[in-house]
């Protein structure tokens, strides 16, 4: 009889990017030591541009000094992928999972993240598809609606996916998103005429789709973000 698999979900609201990195580092260590089950962070960021391990900053089209004037931050990370933008009305999921427990490799993990976003899009009648080779992510036609950038260390994942609900698209004009120059970025708002529920509901639906794709038996939702966010201050 297979042991039931539990996913613990933290709904964090809007979190500063650096704080979320610190939190993920901590959770990755905890997961590696088996002190916590597979964990998922559901959140949004204030306007933030991020780069991956390859540091492709030639894809940032405005000088770094100007970012403050548009109310955005820039961060270099260890995740895979190119430059991207995170901001309000973009749903972010950071799964902290043990891939070895489920026998997944990088490729099958990323494909499952893509399927989660595709499944979620279909709830609104949006026909999304996984990217072609070298275009990892989720697309509606030639327009990118969901991005992926992941880090795997000792088989534990961090970073994850970003799905555009209705972000301010002007922010994307300052970058070559994901290093792909000739394709547009889109959002759920732009791809459907359907009435969109509250963002809280949207996040829940996205989490449910991911839990289903990854075959979790139980999903435990933790709604007090201060419980883990505040412990970060104690470590300073």
């Amino acid at each position, binding site marked *: 009889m297979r042991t039931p698999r539990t996913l613990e979900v933290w709904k964090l609201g809007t979190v500063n990017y650096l704080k979320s990195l610190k939190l993920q580092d901590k959770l990755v260590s905890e997961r590696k030591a088996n002190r916590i089950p597979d964990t998922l962070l559901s959140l949004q960021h204030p306007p933030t541009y991020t780069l*991956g*391990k*390859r540091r492709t900053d030639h894809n940032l089209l405005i000088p770094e000094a100007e970012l403050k004037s548009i109310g955005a931050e820039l961060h270099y990370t*260890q*995740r*895979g*992928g190119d430059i991207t933008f995170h901001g309000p009305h973009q749903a972010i999921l950071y799964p902290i999972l043990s891939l*070895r*427990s*489920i*026998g*997944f*490799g*990088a*490729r*099958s*993990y*990323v494909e499952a993240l893509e399927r989660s976003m595709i499944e979620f899009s279909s709830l609104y009648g949006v026909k999304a598809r996984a990217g072609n*080779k*070298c275009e*990892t*992510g989720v697309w509606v036609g030639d327009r990118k609606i969901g991005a*992926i*950038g*992941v*880090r*795997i*260390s*000792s*088989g534990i994942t961090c970073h994850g996916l970003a799905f555009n609900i209705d972000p301010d698209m002007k922010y994307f004009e300052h970058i070559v998103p994901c290093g792909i120059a000739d394709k547009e970025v889109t959002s759920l708002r732009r791809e459907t005429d359907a009435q969109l529920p509250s963002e809280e509901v949207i996040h829940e639906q996205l989490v449910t789709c991911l839990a289903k794709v990854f075959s979790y038996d139980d999903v435990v939702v933790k709604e007090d973000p201060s419980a883990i966010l505040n412990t970060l201050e104690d470590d300073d």
Partner: protein
Amino acid sequence: MAARFLWASRVASHLRISIAQRGFASVVLKDLKYAESHEWVKIDGNKATFGITDHAQDHLGDVVYVELPDLGRSVSQGESFGAVESVKATSDINSPVSGKVVEVNEVLSESPGLVNTSPYEDGWIIKVELSDAEEAKKLMDSDKYSKFCEEEDAKH
């Protein structure tokens, strides 16, 4: 399958080691040692060469970037010394043994895909001077590693 076996035979005769044909797709070479994190190591006196296995490269997808360590840097068994990027995921590479980096495969900076097409030959990643020859005993031989891969793949 036949093509992969032929490739494996060519690799094996070049490296002068024997191979075993397995039921599942990935190639495992007999005279190498393996870590649970899917790195292989070839020990030659007090020098070791390592890379990632065929199983690892298959599960990663197309490698687009390899982060190599600096020469002279120490590596420790089980600790990360570099990373590969594929499908927007960076995966740490762990050292199967401890030692000092004496050579890195610079070709991978231009041709990271060699890790996929030739994981045991042209896709080698670093060479180290061993600091503790006994450590290799903690690694798996090819039979144990093959079984390990089968068990991992059966999980989903």
